[in-house]
């Protein structure tokens, strides 16, 4: 007499404490074990690509702010690089350095949120997140000095940056650069050897190397699986070839490696910002570009190493003031392709941890 058990479909619905936004997973459970998973997205689809076709090149910059709202500076940076590549616009030296400083600070801030909420999914009641928020507030103060906003900066322009840094920016940045490694040591010391964290994440949700490449994963998810592919090194854009920094690479591709890679990347970003501040030249910050900007007909694919992966902008222009077609390559959507294989066989608690370790941002997935 076999007891007929029935799979139990559970909706980890659009409003859930640890889906990092409006992401829904239709999970089929057998008891606590996940048997099947189907991600349902689109709850934040605002049609940015359609709106971009009816806006001039400069008006699109605020749209890109709201893509991955945890890394607005990097979105601006990627979009503006693509437009300059198509238009062949040369950017002054000082603007290049300012862009690098802002992009790397944004990477630290985004990784802080990724690791913080990863710990929150593990069950540590908001405490790690609030400590990491303390650092993020410092970075947000720096950004507020520069462009007056805390989250959606709209700082970069085609041909440079919108405002120069005020004079109290550099001392505050230097103080931040000196403190940050000490804070990261504090997190490592508290978290990396935490017994429960190790037990909950070591060997959980493994993404093998071949699958990672085959699904087109990028960023910390790809590097944690042992693939040494970082666009800042493989295809250096802007002036990344002037800085020396390592690319941390994981070994097994489990949740612990993704957490470890993000912590090491924060250290490398602090090194880059330190070097950039030392070499920061004087000079003007923006090339005079005739508004409304008309790009020559043609197409370009510019990609940038955003905190969550390879953020690409495919821009087709037909010579008018608005792009004919703008496609944004969402790194987090593509990183989620293998979510089903990584989660099957694990329990509900692991499903939340694995999903948290991929560090998604719904603004970018749904565009």
């Amino acid at each position, binding site marked *: 007499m076999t007891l007929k058990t029935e799979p*139990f479909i559970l909706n980890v619905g659009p409003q859930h404490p640890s889906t990092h936004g409006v992401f829904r997973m239709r999970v089929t459970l057998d008891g606590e074990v996940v048997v099947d998973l189907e991600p349902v997205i689109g709850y934040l689809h605002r049609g940015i690509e359609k709106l971009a076709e009816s806006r001039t090149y400069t008006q699109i910059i605020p749209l890109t702010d709201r893509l991955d709202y945890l890394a607005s500076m990097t979105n601006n940076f990627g979009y503006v690089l693509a437009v300059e590549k198509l238009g062949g616009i040369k950017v002054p030296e000082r603007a290049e350095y300012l862009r690098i400083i802002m992009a790397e600070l944004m990477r630290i801030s985004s990784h802080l949120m990724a690791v913080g909420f990863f710990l929150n999914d593990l069950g540590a009641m908001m405490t790690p997140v*609030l400590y990491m928020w303390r650092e993020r507030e410092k970075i947000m103060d720096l950004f507020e000095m520069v462009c007056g906003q805390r989250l959606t900066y709209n700082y970069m322009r085609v041909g440079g940056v919108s405002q120069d840094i005020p004079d109290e920016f550099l001392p505050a940045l230097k103080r931040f650069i000196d403190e940050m490694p000490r804070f990261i040591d504090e997190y490592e010391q508290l978290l990396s050897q935490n017994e429960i964290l190790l037990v909950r994440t070591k060997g959980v949700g493994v993404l093998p190397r071949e699958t990672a490449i085959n699904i087109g994963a990028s960023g910390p998810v790809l590097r944690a699986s042992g693939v040494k592919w970082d666009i800042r090194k493989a295809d250096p854009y802007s002036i990344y070839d002037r800085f020396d920094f390592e690319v941390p690479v994981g070994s097994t591709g489990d949740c612990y490696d993704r957490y470890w890679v993000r912590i090491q990347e924060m250290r490398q970003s602090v090194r880059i910002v330190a070097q950039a501040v030392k070499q920061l030249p004087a000079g003007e910050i923006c090339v005079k570009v005739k508004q409304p900007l008309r790009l020559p007909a043609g197409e370009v694919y510019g990609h940038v190493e955003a905190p969550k992966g390879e953020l690409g902008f495919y821009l087709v222009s037909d010579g008018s003031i608005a792009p004919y077609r703008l496609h944004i390559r969402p790194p987090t959507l593509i990183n989620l392709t293998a979510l089903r294989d990584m989660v099957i066989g*694990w329990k*509900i*608690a692991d499903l939340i941890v694995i999903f948290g370790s991929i560090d998604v941002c719904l603004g970018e997935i749904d565009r």
Partner: protein
Amino acid sequence: MMTLLEEFRAWLSAALPEWAAYLIAGIVGIFVVLGFVLTLVIVFIWYERRLLGRFQIRLGPNRLGPEGIFQPIATALKILIKEDVVPEKADRVVHWLAPIVVFVPVLMVFAVIPLSQGAILADLNVGVLYLVAVGSVSAVGIYMAGWGSNNKYALIAAMRTVAQIVSYELPVVLSLLGVVLMVGSLSMTKTVEAQVVPFIVMQPLGFLIFFLGALAEMNRCPFDLLEADSEIVAGYHTEYSGMKFAMFYLGEYGHALAYACIITTLFLGGWRGPVLPPFLWFLIKVVAVFSLIVWLRATLPRLRVDQLMAFAWKGLFPMALINIFVVAVEMLWLVDISRWLVVATNIVLAVVLILAWSRLFVLGRGRVEV
């Protein structure tokens, strides 16, 4: 030794017939203990929110009254007068009964706890047995809540409840046996009197097992699977609001307070203390244990369900068995020689066992092939 209640009853029986004196004394005793418990629970709610704030480098509630003293009163009053929503397809009776079955055992525990020199409601000579019996009733209540509210998340929480509380009942009871062996009787007042040297020093391993088991019983971190808000939205009390939710909310803190009192009575020497009045000593120890519980809640991440079970069955249960055996042998020979020898052997035993277990057992790597 006459407890305060018996003296009061003797004084009353002079004026009133026997049954009336007994009744009135009982009711007055209950009101005094309940009053003490509920005020302490309200203070603990405030204390936890402020302490959590301290751990998370933020200010806790400080707007109402000096340092936010009236905040829990406002919270409790607000929850009580909120609309009481019962889901349409829910099992009404079970849904209505569950909070009562969870909350009442928590209050019943305080009947046996010696608050001060003679202040104990019922000096049962089977005190510890009563504690264990009452302690495990709330698991049924939580399961009823999970099942009654016809909600998938609550059902998962209900399943986890039964597994967790039943499997942690065993180590808790076995570590209690260690204490009973040392005292020689089940009565709580005798336990407190026997603790010339508090039992936390006499048998550290027993204390450790009891403390971890108690954490799992009141489902506080790192074993707070039941209302793991990052996984199953609000656990078993997802579908509760208003008065019923207030009972769960106060019940949770009542559970923490109950176990804090039990730990102080059994392991930290109840109201015994050198200079201060006994009742103050009792309060200090209870607040100290509660702070430790809140500290754990603020820092540790959560264990997975199967790791929790593995920890209970492979970790705590065998250690509790060994602990009883060693304490029994000590009671036969060592205790006549010198008390401090017992302490030394127990500490060595604790260290050896914990190291051995941390090497031997790996908490479940559990990927089930599907």
